[in-house]
């Protein structure tokens, strides 16, 4: 009896704590998705300011995808809307959060997960922390005590900002890499950790729940990619029944010239590389036959304006 009573006390205490943390979360959560409002990763979180249900393709992943996929180029070629929700060294737990956030306002038909993030080391502790941070925003944004405004106490959360690059990180710098082949076929297979495999499965389930299809995509990188990694992802894709495209094996179509198309010796693509890749990705998206060309549609006039005013090359980061 005494045990029951005390267990009850602990439960009540924890419930009270949860209520307090939820109340604090309401205060500490940024009310807009701009840095001055306390938002983190604003380039990727610009998705929150996009008008509802206007994004066709959503990209999650790390810096590889942020530098390799140019949404305005895809818009120019196809009239499809894409947004890159990628962040530096993104772990799959955060990819899941980004996707979950984006699904609150968007219903993309395809979600692309750049595959380097699948190999990023992630501990169970990282994963649990990310879940807590996502569910109790006071944990992520607690440092906002330094800049709280009156509006934070009771004000509504209204993210209205987005960026013209649509999450793409543009740079025209060139630091050449080697054009030596780096994708020699082999049987070796890099293994994906159990936790990361579970996260890929969870991302797939989340996509299906929201009417999206998950696509695994490896963007070209001579430093970060090789055939063993390709085999590892191929195995995961087959196990989970997910389509997989490795653009490192498609250079006859993409024609990346590593002496010109990278800004850091083959680690990431620069703008000219991103344009080449986006052209091929545009073709793939067109082949799917599931997207509508929004060019000329008044609801997408802003995309037209950006293209007219700035072309496919937004301001360099």
């Amino acid at each position: 009896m005494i045990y029951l009573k005390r267990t009850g006390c602990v439960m009540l205490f924890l419930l009270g704590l949860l209520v307090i943390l939820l109340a604090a979360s309401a205060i500490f959560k940024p009310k807009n998705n701009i840095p001055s409002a306390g938002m983190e990763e604003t380039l990727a979180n610009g998705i929150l300011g996009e008008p509802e249900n206007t994004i066709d393709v959503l990209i999650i992943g790390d810096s590889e995808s942020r530098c390799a996929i140019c949404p305005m180029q895809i818009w120019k070629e196809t009239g499809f809307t894409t947004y890159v929700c990628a962040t530096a060294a993104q772990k799959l737990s955060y990819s899941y959060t980004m996707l979950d956030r984006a699904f609150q306002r968007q219903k993309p038909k395809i979600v692309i997960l750049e595959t380097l993030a699948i190999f990023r080391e992630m501990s169970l502790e990282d994963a649990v922390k990310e879940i807590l941070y996502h569910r109790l925003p006071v944990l992520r944004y607690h440092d906002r005590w330094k800049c709280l405004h009156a509006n934070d106490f009771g004000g509504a959360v209204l993210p209205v900002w987005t960026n013209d690059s649509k999450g793409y990180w543009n740079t025209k710098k060139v630091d050449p890499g080697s054009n030596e082949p780096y994708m020699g076929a082999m049987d070796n297979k890099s293994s994906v950790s159990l936790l990361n495999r579970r996260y890929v499965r969870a991302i797939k389930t989340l996509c299906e729940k929201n009417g999206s299809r998950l696509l695994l995509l490896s963007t070209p990188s001579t430093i970060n990619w090789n055939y063993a990694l390709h085999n590892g992802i191929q195995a995961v894709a087959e196990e989970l029944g997910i389509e997989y495209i490795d653009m490192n094996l498609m250079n006859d179509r993409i024609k990346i010239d590593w002496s010109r198309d990278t800004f850091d010796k083959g680690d990431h693509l620069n703008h000219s590389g991103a344009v080449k890749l986006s052209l091929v990705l545009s073709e793939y998206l067109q082949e799917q036959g599931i997207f509508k060309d929004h060019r000329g549609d008044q609801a997408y006039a802003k995309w037209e304006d950006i293209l007219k005013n700035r072309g496919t090359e937004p301001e360099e980061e």
Partner: protein
Amino acid sequence: MLPLSSYFSLLYLAILLPGTVLAYTVLPQKYRRAVLLLSSYAVFWLVSGKLLCYLLFSTISVHHIGLWLENTQLEANRLLETAPKETRKDIRARTQQRRKKIVAFGIAVQFGILLALKYGAFFISNFNELADLMKVTVKLPVPSVILPIGISFYTMQAASYMLDVYRENIPADRNLMRLALYMSFFPQLMEGPICRYSETAQQLWDAPPMRWKNLMLGLQRILWGIMKKMVVADRLNLLITEAFDNYVHYDGFMIAAAVVCYTVQLYMDFSGTMDLVLGSGQIFGIKLPENFQRPFFSRTIQEFWRRWHITLGAWFRDYVFYPISLSAPIKKLPLLLQKRLGRTYGFIFSSIPALFCVWLCNGLWHGAGWNFIFFGMYHFALILVENIMEPPAVWLAKRLHINRDGILYRCMQIVRTAVLFCIGELFFRASSLKAGFAMFKKIFTDFTLARVKDNTFFSHGADKHDFLIVVVTLALILAVGCIQERGVSVRQWIEKRNLAVRLSLWYLLILFIVIFGAYGTGYIPVDPIYAGF
């Protein structure tokens, strides 16, 4: 594998500790000790993996040495019972000699492992440098070794057990499990306190039943420790790392500020960890020895070291200072010197050899580096000067009618002690002895407030808000310290309040840590500092 890096990780606080508490609560008494031992080895495994074999070897060998010592004595006692009177003295002497050899062997094995793993690289690289200087073409390969977690701590516990058995202060433990638990109890595995067998082994083996009051008090202390670590120690980490790693780019003010911040960080990190460790022990009804007693209230460096890392100081006192002081050649010194220097100074100067050894060991214990040796020698010199200066200081105060117990004089002594300790910490934290001296010189030759005036001082990982919250938290800790110095127990005071007050305090403390803790984007928590020693 789930790597465990600190007691402040989610893995420890949300899984390992609650899991052990749950198993400990639901299982009957005879299994509780097994729960503690299994959890201890699980924690060691999660931190150091296969290096667990070092701990197992130490435990088994120490157990064996203890039995060997005791059996030798028992055998001698049996012989003495039947031996004629004239041979008894000889038997006693031979037995003593034999026991001395056994304990020396045991100590040599334990400290041999520690020396090889922790100091091997230091000694070899110094040997190579010396060979270079002497133009000898001998270059020994410098080994790169990963240390098992807490090796300095459990080695000292092992040594104290063997020496206590040798001195017949305690009987040898025939129960390997009990000894294993004493050597590895998981909360004190990484950073101490350095326990004595006579104080903790039986408590652990008794595995008292879980008590609601102990659980509450333990959790309360854990929260207090988390606050110290996450709100203060982690918050100052970026500034300290930047200033110490790139001191050549900074002026004297920045370096002085970083030194003060480091001293605060070290205290908050280590005492915060001790709160967590002792709180974890308290949950199971185990009373581990205190390691801190508000050291920054100390009026002298000697007093400071009686309040800072108490169990380490006590270990050196009992197993280094006393044996050296009571050894045959040193024993004669006080009498010899008292005749020439008087009673007070005779006593002070006769303690020099033992004091020197204690502080050399203390410096070396903290790490293999000349800056640590300097740190030890610095405190040796301070304590010696303090002892020498005490009689003239008393005389002068009397002549000038200064009340040495007055608040002003006391405050002056407290500040002086804190400043002297901070200077020691500069060399302790510096990347090398040379860097330490260069930083110390800069404080006096390049002191300017320009960085504060143009606000760049606040752009190195700790802004004005960060300093504000550090000051507020330290003020809170100081206030609690002042109350405790008067002999009042804050925890007992809280316990007597009604439920609403107690609940509010719990929630306030948790919310304080959640909001003002230095975690997440923009912060890099400091690695457990003493776990590295």
